[in-house]
């Protein structure tokens, strides 16, 4: 079997390398220290993709990938603490930078469609973003307070 550069398994390796570079430049964690953690994250992705394939229903891969990450680091999982410690060497912000790099490149094609939108829809969008954030935060704050968490 020949692996193509278009295969998610290969793309993820490339993203992992980009992240190790960013993790070094931005957060001063050298790639050798971060490697075991990155390898674990990579295996979680591969495992998650496999589970997505064999599970019934149409849940997206991100759900199973996250769940697998949760299970492997839970306090009740024997190696949980070790897995969490190793993966903590990969800063989550370092992982977001390549994603938004690809997103930035692809954004160009939406600019023309966006220009055709009126100013009204932009105002509504801002309203929706602010509203969703503030309403959720206020509810969360009140419930955390009522249940004595904060």
């Amino acid at each position, binding site marked *: 079997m020949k692996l193509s550069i278009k295969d998610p398994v290969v793309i993820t390796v490339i993203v992992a390398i980009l992240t190790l570079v960013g993790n070094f430049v931005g957060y001063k964690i050298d790639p050798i220290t971060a490697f075991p953690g990155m390898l674990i994250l990579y295996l979680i992705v591969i495992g998650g993709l496999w589970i997505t394939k064999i599970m019934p229903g149409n849940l997206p891969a991100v759900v199973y990938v996250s769940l697998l990450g949760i299970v492997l680091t839970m*306090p009740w999982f024997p190696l949980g603490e070790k897995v969490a410690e190793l993966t903590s060497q990969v800063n989550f912000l370092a992982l977001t930078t390549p994603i938004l790099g690809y997103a930035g490149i692809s954004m160009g094609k939406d600019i023309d469609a966006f220009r055709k939108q009126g100013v009204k829809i932009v105002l509504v969008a801002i309203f929706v973003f602010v509203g969703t954030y503030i309403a959720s935060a206020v509810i969360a704050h009140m419930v955390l307070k009522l249940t004595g968490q904060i």
Partner: protein
Amino acid sequence: MLEDKRHLKLHLIVLVLVVLAEFIGTKSFKVGPGTVVLLPMLYALLLGLLTGPKFLRITDMEDMKTAESLITVSVLLLMAKYGTNIGPTLPLIIKSGPALILQEFGNLGTVLLGMPFALMLGLRREAIGATFSIAREPNLAIISDMYGLDSPEGRGVMGVYLCGTLFGSIFFGLFAGIAATTLPLHPYALAMASGVGSASMMSAAVGALVEIFPNMAEEITAFGAASNLATGADGVYMSIFMAIPMCEWMYRKLVGDRAEEVTKR
């Protein structure tokens, strides 16, 4: 073979973007009463946009389409990472379960306030598509199913979707920082609110919060990730069974009767 080269080219561009963005690093500064946090991911986004045919012409239309297909795959590692953020804090997250679940209804507050606002601006059926959610891909699919994307509702959701794609993460990154420094809300609550259903918007908001409250970094990241996961799971049902019916109801109450009269004439 040509496609392979295109992929390689995009990865190399992103490598340059990553190095530049991380080299600049996170910057935060005070503006009035609030703090504005600028994250490397936001520079990567803007620099990426600059590579396009309208600016530096390093990438063309085909490159942009391929880049879009790479986003979905590149998110997987981040999702694995978020899983490992949630895992160790699971006992705390379970204890905060009620807050985590109930804040999911915050979205409906947007409908209550957003619908009148959109109608006031002169939008009509577009208002339904525009205000029932923060318009990410699953929401686009719902409207496409129920009304079609060519309908006024479809135009509404598409408009907010485009706004979110273009400046959603920038907006949430800036806004979370300002909200955290100006509003009397607990960082945990702000973290939960960050899980709006988009990995990049949530990361931008959480990244800003972590910069402001570094001693709570672990909990903030875990709450944001858990809430985002919850939104991913319940968002579709919330939209179909609650938000859209609410929008329809408000539309009937606020303009429906008059609109019908007009069309009858």
